[in-house]
Structures are given as structure tokens and as C-alpha cells.
């Protein structure tokens, strides 16, 4: 009979990767199940009922989704969300890319510039919203004073149906510029000098180097920035809540703002949940579309 030394179970567990993986992942797993997966499923279920929190929930089938399609306010906020995204994302990305390019020219005070451009990123949306509301003040605000200096009668900004949305878009671009700039700067610094040297030897001009070297090689960063910016702008809320409450005449009310109102002001939980799912599929669809299209313009 061979006398194999047996290792006690407790000791085996202590040295087992699987055991420790289970222990170390437990908080994440519980958090994921309780605060992610379950709410996702629950919210899907809620989107088929009518519920005002006071009376028992009533089954409504696809009614909420039908109502959404017929709701002119929903169509309006959907359009506003698209307006906000198209207004803020492309311009924001172009400006932050140009700033990163400028910052990459090995000029003095790079760190100081980076810090200054980053200030709005770390500031709370609420504070930013309040300060810019003051800047936009039609009579006593700084902007209309400056516009007046060059002979322009400034608009009433946040109380104008036409100008409120552009005004909010400008603030959101201003706030996110530094974040995207830092991402682009890291991407630019990752492009090896040899490519430029080779291009130079071939006699490529500055513009040609830009078009044939910089833009293709930075495209993975661009993709990341585009996706994050679009996701972020689809979920805009704080700034709009603080600056306009969606007004005037719903001209700045976006999806999440209307969702918030439906859930926590009108107490239409089912309707708001249906809207949340529309938002989810929108974000999901748009992200997927961007990833698909990236195959034709992103160089790895």
C-alpha cells in the first residue's frame, strides 16, 4: 500500500486559483446581479405596465411603446437629443484634435496648458451650468457685453427658443474639450517619429503628412473618442436641468430629461421605463453602427 500524502481540503482551497477568483470577484458579481442585471430585466418588465407607484401596476402590453410613437413630446425630445449630439460631438472632436496637435508641437508650458484645459472637465456640471447661465444673461451677462463691443446685439440665449440649444451645446463642448484633447495628445505622442522622417524624405508637405500619416494613425483614438462622446451626449441631463429645465417651450428638453420628468415628476414608471429601453437600443444601435463603419476608416 502506498502512503500518498493527502493535502487537506482547506489547504487545497487556500492555494486554488478558482476558489480565490470566486472570492475576489464576489463583490463585483453581486453588484452586477443586484444593481445591473436585475434592474435591466425589471426595467424591461416595467415597460409593459402602467404604474404610478400609488395604485397597483396594470398590464399594458406594448401600450407604452405605442404611446411613445404617438407622443409629440417624445418626438420632440428625440429630435433635440439628435440635435444636441450632432451639434456638440463633431465640433468638439475637431477642436480638441486641433488643440492636441498644437500641444504636440513641443512648445513650452505643455503641462500648464493641459491643466488649464482640464479645469472644466473636473468641475461639476451644476456649477458649470450656473456660471454659464450668468455669462449668458441677456442684459448683464459677459457675452452680450462683449458682443456689444463689436456692435452685435446679442440674442436672449437661454430664454430664446432658437438660441437655447446652441447655448447649451457650446457649454458642453467647452466642458469636454480637455478630456478629448488629452486622449488625442496621448495618441499623437504614440506615433513614431520615423513615419514623419520617411514622409519628409519623400518630400511630403505638412498637409500631406497630416492626411497620410497623422489622421490614419490616430484613427483608433478617434473611434474611441467618437463612441464615448456620442454615448455621453445621448445621456445629457445635468447641464440641461440646471440651465433651462428643458425650456423654453421644450426647445432643450432631451431624452433623459423627459425620462426624468415622466418617472419622478409625473410618476409614469412604465412609460419612463419604455423610454429608457428606447434610449438603450438607440445607444446600442449607434455604437454598433460606429464599430461597423470603423472598419473602413480605422487603421490598426
Amino acid at each position, binding site marked *: 500500500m502506498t502512503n500518498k500524502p493527502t493535502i487537506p481540503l482547506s489547504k487545497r482551497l487556500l492555494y486554488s*486559483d478558482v476558489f*480565490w477568483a470566486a472570492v475576489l*470577484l464576489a463583490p463585483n458579481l453581486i453588484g452586477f446581479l443586484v444593481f445591473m442585471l436585475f434592474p435591466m430585466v425589471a*426595467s424591461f418588465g416595467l415597460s409593459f405596465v402602467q404604474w404610478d407607484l400609488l395604485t397597483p401596476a396594470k398590464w399594458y402590453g406594448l401600450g407604452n411603446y405605442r404611446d411613445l410613437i404617438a407622443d409629440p413630446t417624445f418626438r420632440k425630445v428625440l429630435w433635440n437629443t439628435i440635435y444636441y449630439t450632432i451639434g456638440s460631438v463633431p465640433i468638439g472632436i475637431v477642436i480638441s484634435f*486641433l488643440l492636441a496637435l*498644437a500641444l504636440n508641437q513641443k512648445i513650452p508650458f505643455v503641462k500648464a496648458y493641459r*491643466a488649464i*484645459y482640464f479645469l472644466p472637465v473636473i468641475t461639476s456640471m451644476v456649477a458649470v451650468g450656473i456660471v454659464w447661465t450668468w455669462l449668458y444673461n441677456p442684459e*448683464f451677462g459677459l457675452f452680450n457685453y462683449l458682443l456689444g463691443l463689436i456692435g452685435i446685439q446679442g440674442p436672449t440665449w437661454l430664454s430664446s427658443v432658437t438660441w437655447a440649444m446652441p447655448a447649451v451645446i457650446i457649454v458642453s463642448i467647452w466642458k469636454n474639450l480637455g478630456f478629448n484633447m488629452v486622449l488625442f495628445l496621448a*495618441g499623437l505622442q504614440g506615433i513614431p517619429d520615423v513615419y514623419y522622417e520617411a514622409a519628409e524624405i519623400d518630400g511630403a508637405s505638412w498637409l500631406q503628412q497630416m492626411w497620410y500619416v497623422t489622421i490614419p494613425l490616430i484613427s483608433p483614438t478617434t473611434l474611441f473618442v467618437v463612441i464615448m462622446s456620442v454615448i455621453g451626449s445621448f445621456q445629457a441631463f445635468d447641464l440641461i436641468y440646471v440651465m433651462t429645465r428643458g425650456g423654453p417651450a421644450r426647445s432643450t428638453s432631451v431624452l433623459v430629461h423627459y425620462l426624468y420628468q415622466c418617472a419622478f415628476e409625473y410618476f409614469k414608471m412604465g412609460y419612463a421605463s419604455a423610454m429608457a429601453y428606447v434610449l438603450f437600443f438607440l445607444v446600442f444601435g449607434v455604437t454598433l453602427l460606429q464599430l461597423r463603419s470603423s472598419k473602413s476608416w480605422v487603421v490598426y
Partner: protein
Amino acid sequence: MRLNRATVIIAQIVLILGAITMVVPFLWMLSTSFKSLPEVFRFPPTLFGKRIVWENYLHIADRFPFGRFFMNSLKVSVIVTVGQLLTCSMGGFAFARLKFPFRDSLFAMYLATLIIPFHVTLIPVFLMMRAFGWIDTHYSLIIPALVSPFGTFLMRQFFLTIPVELEEAARIDGCTPFGVYWRIFVPLSKPAMATLGLFTFMGTWNDFIRPLIFINSVPRRTLPLGLAALQTMYTTDWPVLMAGSVISVLPVIVVFLFAQEFFIQGITLSGLKG
């Protein structure tokens, strides 16, 4: 890229103009906060008032429990940050270094939750908080925020860069997987922890929609919520509103100026090493 004089000068001009645009709103906030109300409505506007009016700050301190809001924000942010550092480093370590079945597909699934808009879970989480009796308590701001797929991802990416030899040597010396995590990886991950900690702290400190929905009573408000309430009370008292904004913005700016590098590192780490 080729560096000629012209491009450098153009770059400088662009950057200076941009920097002015970034700074002016902050300067205007600061200068308004030290003016008297009549001075704010004077034409043409001036950067400095006739005298520095500290009363706006005192006024806020009197009428509004800003000290309390500050402490609430600090409490919630610190607890959430410490909690996330722990859970994210644990999860990140497991995903980066332990061998277990379905590890990579599990990680991919967890990562995919990053694109789920937070608002999809908002209503059910609100209902859960109500069922637990956590509405209008800080539990509602803390407990659901203790784990983070983004943070776990960030820590995993960092742990992947630690040389395998260190881990192998420790294991040969009889270290358990937990020992490897706690004695080797945690001490080595200070820069990544600092980055994640700053992000989490900042995000929690500035969070608005959760406190807006979960917190009702005045003494439990966090700073952004208090500031928004100040706005509805003093709609056109701009000096007081600006003083409130300064108070809420200042701590974050101070933290940032001391820890700039960690922010930049974190952003580039999350963006480039997918």
C-alpha cells in the same frame, strides 16, 4: 512632424486663445462672487468691484448649511472611493492573473455592460432603494456605487503590465493567490489606485442625478444638490450664486492641481490599451 517657426507660432496662438476661453468663466465666477448686487448690474461690467465683498460667502454660510453639504459630499465620496478601490482591485486581479474557467468570456461580458446607459437601471434601482427604506439616506448613494465595471477594467489593464516573474517567485515561495494579490500586486499598484481613486472621487463628488432622485431632506444633501437648490432660491442674486459655485468647485480644483499626473495617466490608460 516638421517643426518650422510658423507652425509653432500658430500653435501658441491657438493654445493661448483656447486657454483664455477655458479660464474666463472661472474668473468671472470668482470676480462676481466678490461683488455687491448693485455692482453686478452696473454697465459696463468690471472685473473688480469697488471693494471686495466677503458678505456673499458669509450670507451663504448663514442661510444655507453648506458646511453640512460639504461634509455629506466628503463622506459619500470617501466611502465610495475606498470601496471601489477594494472591489475593483480584487476583481481586476482575478481577471488579470488567476486562472479559472470562462475567465475571458466573463470579462468580455462584464466589459460590455459599460455601454449600458445608467438611466436604463435608474427606475428599478430607485424602486429597490424605496423597498429597502434607503431613500433619503446616504446608503442609496453609497451601496449601489461600490462596484464599477470601468474601475475593474482599469485595474485589470494595470495588473496585466506587472511582470509574471514576480508572481511566480512568490508562488514558489508558498504564497497563496490572495497573498500574491495583497502582498505584491496591491503595493505595486499605487499609481493605478491613485488614478482610479481620483476618478471615482471626482465622479461621486460631482454626481447630480442620483442625489436629485434619492435625497429629499435638506440636511442630507450633497454639494451639487445644495447648489442647485441655492439656484432655485436665489435666481438672480448672482454674487451669492457665484460664491456657492466657488465653494463647491474649489476643493476639486485643489485636489486636481496636486494630482494632475494621475488623471492624465488614467485617461490615457483607459483609452489606449483596450
